[in-house]
């Protein structure tokens, strides 16, 4: 995609996940739309690490809705896109792809076998040398050095991975699908309009965490909790919230939709609880 800042970009949906697959979109989301998302992709060799994460980026449903409502993005059903692309292929192309895949598998198998053989050979070689050393220390080196043994055979070339780029579908004209969002959306939108960066607050036992600027530069200010305006909740939750915020130097923010005016706009009010520590 050449210029994503002007054109709406696709959000791929699958199983109620909202994914961004284009890396060029991410900085724009962050700078222009104050949308953080979070990275899902990890390193194939060390799948359990979570220090280096990459594409795809997952958006919260709230974030996706905000983008769609602003006309910055549109939803795309990943499954359908893939199906359409596959249908569009001719028989020959399909054959070709299958052939390539098979070839890659074979190559991979051969490479593994060779590596295993190599390891085995090295082991026996080392064992032979050790035995020789034990038998007569002074004569050990004559037949042993690596020069005589055949050098490691060249690694077979790794098969070339062919990338099949599924072209991003064109934005649908007319009405677009809108993500389903939880009840906490109005508060999310309210704080987002107040130029806060919001991310999921599960770590802090809240709905969201609000940052006054880019999280790379600022600590968060609030643990955001959304409630119905007349919802009853236990007083003990305020104690917990106050302590929770105090412990990590945040305010514990509580908010909800007070009323909805004629034009359908939600009037949100928010309150902040801080641990007094008298």
């Amino acid at each position, binding site marked *: 995609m050449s210029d994503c800042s002007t054109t709406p970009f696709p959000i791929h949906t699958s199983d109620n996940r909202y994914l961004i697959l284009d890396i060029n979109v991410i900085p724009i989301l962050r700078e222009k739309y104050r949308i953080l998302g979070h990275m899902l992709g990890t390193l194939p060799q060390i799948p*359990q690490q*979570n220090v280096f994460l990459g594409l795809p980026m997952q958006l919260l449903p709230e974030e996706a809705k905000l983008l769609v409502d602003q006309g910055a993005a549109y939803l795309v059903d990943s499954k359908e896109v893939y199906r359409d692309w596959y249908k569009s292929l001719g028989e020959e192309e399909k054959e070709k792809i299958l052939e390539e895949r098979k070839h890659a598998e074979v190559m991979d198998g051969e490479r593994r076998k060779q590596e295993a053989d190599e390891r085995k050979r090295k082991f026996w070689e080392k064992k032979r040398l050790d035995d020789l050393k034990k038998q007569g220390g002074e004569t050990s080196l004559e037949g042993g050095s690596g020069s005589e043994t055949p050098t490691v055979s060249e690694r077979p070339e790794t098969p070339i991975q062919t990338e099949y780029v599924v072209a991003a579908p064109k934005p649908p004209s007319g009405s677009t699908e809108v993500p389903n969002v939880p009840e906490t959306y109005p508060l999310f939108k309210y704080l987002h309009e107040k130029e806060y960066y919001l991310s999921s*607050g*599960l*770590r*802090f*036992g*809240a*709905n969201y965490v609000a940052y006054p600027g880019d999280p790379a530069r600022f600590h968060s200010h609030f643990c955001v*909790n959304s409630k119905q305006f007349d919802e009853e909740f*236990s007083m*003990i*939750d305020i*104690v*917990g*919230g106050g*302590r*929770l915020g105090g*412990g990590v130097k945040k305010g514990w923010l509580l908010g909800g939709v007070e009323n909805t005016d004629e034009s359908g706009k939600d009037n949100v009010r928010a309150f902040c609880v801080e641990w007094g520590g008298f």
Partner: protein
Amino acid sequence: MAESTAETPVSTSPKVAPQQPRKQQTKKPNYGIIHKDPLPLTITPTPELTLHNPLSVAHFLYSYFFAANNSHPVPLYTGTFNPLTSSVHITDERSVNDLWCRGFFGKGNLSRSEPTWLIRTQRRLGVIGADENLTSEEITERRRNERREFKAERARAEREKLEEILAREGKLTREQQMLAAQLEEDSKAASEDVDTSAVPDLSTLVAEPEARTNIEFENQEHLQLSLEEAFFLSFGLGSLQVLDPDTKKPLSPAQLLPLFRAHSYCPPLLQGVDPLQPDDPFLVSYAVYHHFRSLGWVVKSGIKFSVDFLLYNRGPVFSHAEFAVKILPAYEHPYYSSSHAGVARKQRAEKERTWSWLHAINRVCSQVKKTVILVYVEVPAPEQLEGKTVGEIMKLFRVKEVSLRRWLPTRNRD
């Protein structure tokens, strides 16, 4: 948190005033003797029995059948139920003292935990010396003051060091020097202000030990028992008599149960209007309270950490609480999956438990180094309660504990 005050070492600056020699630690009272009874009951062990010694057999039989003293306190401790605070108030000195010393029941209404208002007031009025019978509130306050002074001193030393360097490098203009001097004076004045306002200087207030004043005043404090504590003492142990606030007549456990369960709701239910429910907050939490008390734990309210109970190994004076208990009613009985009303009740209760709530209490409790225990209480069906006595009702509850710990893949790799 206040509970972990590992003081960081003073910076190496020579300007820091040498640390005053630490005041002699006031001797702690011997808590082992004061709190030797785990519960307000007296246990008289029977003498050792030697079968071939007729004297021993006679002694044994005598003490077995004619026990010298009652295991219950005589007369029973008395408290009055207070509907406004939904608690039981204990005002007579013997009951207050014994209930705190033997099992750590209740809380002083003017104190953090142990009723210490009298001691603190006596000290303020000069009836007792500055370091006599220090209460836990005073110890905490002193520690915080020390810490505050230490921090102010450290900040001052660091600033002086910085100014010294600047002066040596000639970067401090005359104006700045003036400003710095001014600032210093201000801060000195401010810190003196803080010291005198926040911390009444005890040495000036308290007269010398010889010149003690003798002011007579009444103890304004009473002990508050939570509903669970009062019910345990009255129904579980039989050591406490709870009086009706109006008639001043003692209430039996069968009368207390409907009263207490009505007051476990906010606002309290009208008595006699709604029938007893199997998942009444009081019934469920009393089942848990009784469970842990019978296992020997000292159970105190956990409201300050947003949980239901805190479990102390021997008592709050001996160690910090190890566990934080959160009660979750579990609707396992077939009634809650088959009948319409049962399913609705189950869903209503489970709606309140969200993941973020669990994360929140776990975070709050791990900040203060407590392990969260989720206690599932299996709730019986409503029809099981009909026509049962208090003891039979309590037998219907089953308690299961699940310990919870925050697990981080990066920190727990061992």
